[in-house]
């Protein structure tokens, strides 16, 4: 269609001719009576280049930037508006291979999506890592006091458990565990002592019926015959007697009195060596409690600022144990440090 129309010089701006910018340029040149060689010399180009331009053979030109530039210069020489010609040249099918920028966005799009996927995945990983860190951090304060408590609890629990079995064979010599057991092996007879001894004293009297009675009647009975209580006497119920082992060094004396006084509302929980709760609840200003039960005690004091702990009247520094306003610690009154 364009070929039929092309010979007619007066069709300067129909869509068909715009589709073929080279044809339009040739028409304009011929209309002005210019030779290709003259145009070529004016544009400082070779005549072959001008022919290639007129025939829309852009693949014979050095590159898109030059093809567009030559077109613009040629159009300007002929006094034609170069913009529609350049747009037509860009849209021409031959031009596509010389204008790689047209196909580039697709690659960029694929690249961009893969980058976004990478970002999303890495964001998810970072979020997961932060979440796990937060979980660990939250659970940390709960965990930390326990090892401390176990350290103090464990040796007495595990140490006496073995001696009885061994002493059952060799009653008088607590041979294999002398390192941990020196306090432990003689502890069993001794362990009876602190419980047996307080009884005459007035203070701990009420504790005896209240706490150990329902669960642990056996150690009490074994504890009573002080001198008879050899190692074999309590092979089964090892749990209660051994805990008192720590006390043994000071056992001859009465256990120190541990008292809590409050100047304001404070939540508190105290457990004895058997992890039995001996004191719990919210206490108010002016309350005073003397701890009974077997040390060491495990304290959770909710408001250390309002609580005051004394051991035999000596004040105990709660602030040193407090984290924030809450103190979690284990205390053996006979060994305050």
């Amino acid at each position, binding site marked *: 269609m364009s070929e039929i129309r092309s010979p007619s010089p007066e069709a300067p701006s129909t869509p068909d001719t715009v589709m073929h910018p080279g044809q339009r340029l040739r028409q304009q040149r011929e209309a002005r009576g210019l030779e290709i060689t003259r145009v070529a010399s004016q*544009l400082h180009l070779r005549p072959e280049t001008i022919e290639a331009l007129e025939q829309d053979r852009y693949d014979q030109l050095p590159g898109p930037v030059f093809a567009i*530039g030559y077109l*613009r210069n040629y159009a300007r020489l002929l006094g034609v508006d170069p913009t529609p010609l350049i747009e037509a040249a860009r849209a021409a099918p031959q031009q596509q291979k010389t204008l790689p920028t047209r196909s580039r966005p697709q690659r960029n799009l694929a690249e961009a999506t893969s980058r976004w996927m*990478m*970002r999303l995945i*890495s964001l998810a990983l970072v979020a997961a890592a932060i979440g796990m860190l937060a979980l660990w951090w939250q659970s940390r304060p709960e965990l930390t006091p326990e090892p401390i408590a176990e350290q103090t609890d464990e040796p007495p629990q595990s140490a006496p458990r073995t001696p009885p079995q061994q002493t059952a064979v060799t009653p008088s010599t607590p041979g294999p565990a002398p390192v941990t057991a020196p306090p432990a092996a003689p502890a069993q007879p001794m362990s009876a002592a602190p419980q047996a001894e307080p009884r005459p004293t007035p203070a701990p009297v009420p504790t005896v019926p209240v706490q150990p009675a329902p669960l642990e009647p056996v150690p009490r009975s074994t504890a009573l015959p002080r001198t008879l209580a050899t190692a074999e006497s309590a092979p089964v119920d090892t749990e209660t007697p051994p805990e008192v082992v720590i006390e043994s060094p000071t056992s001859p004396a009465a256990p120190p009195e541990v008292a809590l006084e409050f100047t304001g509302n404070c939540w508190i929980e105290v457990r004895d060596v058997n992890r039995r709760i001996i004191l719990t609840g919210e206490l108010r200003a002016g309350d005073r409690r003397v701890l009974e039960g077997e040390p060491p005690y495990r304290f959770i004091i909710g408001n250390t600022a309002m609580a005051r702990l004394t051991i035999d009247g000596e004040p105990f520094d709660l602030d040193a144990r407090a984290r924030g306003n809450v103190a979690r610690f284990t205390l053996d009154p006979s060994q305050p440090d």
Partner: protein
Amino acid sequence: MVFRRIRGMFSNDLSIDLGTANTLIYARGRGIVLDEPSVVAIRHDRATGGKSVAAVGEEAKLMLGRTPQSITAVRPMKDGVIADFTVTEKMLQYFIHKVHESRLISPSPRVLICVPCGSTQVERRAIRESAAGAGAREVYLIEEPMSAAIGAGLPVHEPHGCMVIDIGGGTSEVAVISLNGIVYSASVRIGGDTFDDAIVNYVRRNYGTLIGETTAERIKHTIGSAYPGSEMLEMEVKGRNLAEGVPRSFTLNSNEILEALQEPISGIVGAVKMALEQTPPELGADVAERGIVLTGGGSMLRGFDRLIEDETGLPVVMADDPLTCVARGGGKALELIDERATGLFSVE
């Protein structure tokens, strides 16, 4: 370092054309995302003696020459290189953040910056450190003519010589490129700013009137021309008459501006001719065959391509969108970083 890497995942790689007049940023996969004047307005706090950034870019440019005593509007780049290190760093920081506006994480992109080929090692290091200080994770430098040639779409990797002229705000660069490398390059400290100064001087000399840089730039854009054209353009301008001390208005035409620009333009033409002389003959033949490519905002001066064509007798073509060629070329080079570490990037 690790944090920068993580933040880098959320940042776009950027190619920055840190020009004397304008800063353009090309973001990988997004195209040109920023085109603002390289101007920073600084507020001086007299009470504390401290300085703070009042405005950057377009907003700051409007303040040029119109500031009260407490504000100074400055161009931190001069002749294509850093004139004020701290302010440049602030400006880059602002632009990088602006490009990543919607992000929560502060950006730490890989940045490629175009430097004039005539810049010294000290100047290049200043640009590198300024970008690093603005938050860039890695900084690459590329010479402006190379970036301009890539941006214009020249086949730089071919064993054919291409000549590219990049007329920027502060400098003009002429280079012959072949096989991904610069064979010859020259840089003259003449650019768009020099044209503005020439217009200011011409008006003062011939009309006894003082005009500002912004007005001179407007004159250049409206009626500026480098080659005598068929039509004469006119423009009414207002300035302060030096003799009377009162603002007066007068009319300038394009021929006067052509006359005013003769000196800086002949400087550029001289550099081009010198480059042609110095080019090895094989490459010179290639240039003669294909022609010279013009890029940079300064080349948009009316008739500039015809002037070069006339003076050299070689075909001269204007690149598409010459203002953004350097930034776009930097962006394309940035995409090549991962594919193949070519010799495109300059060492310090």
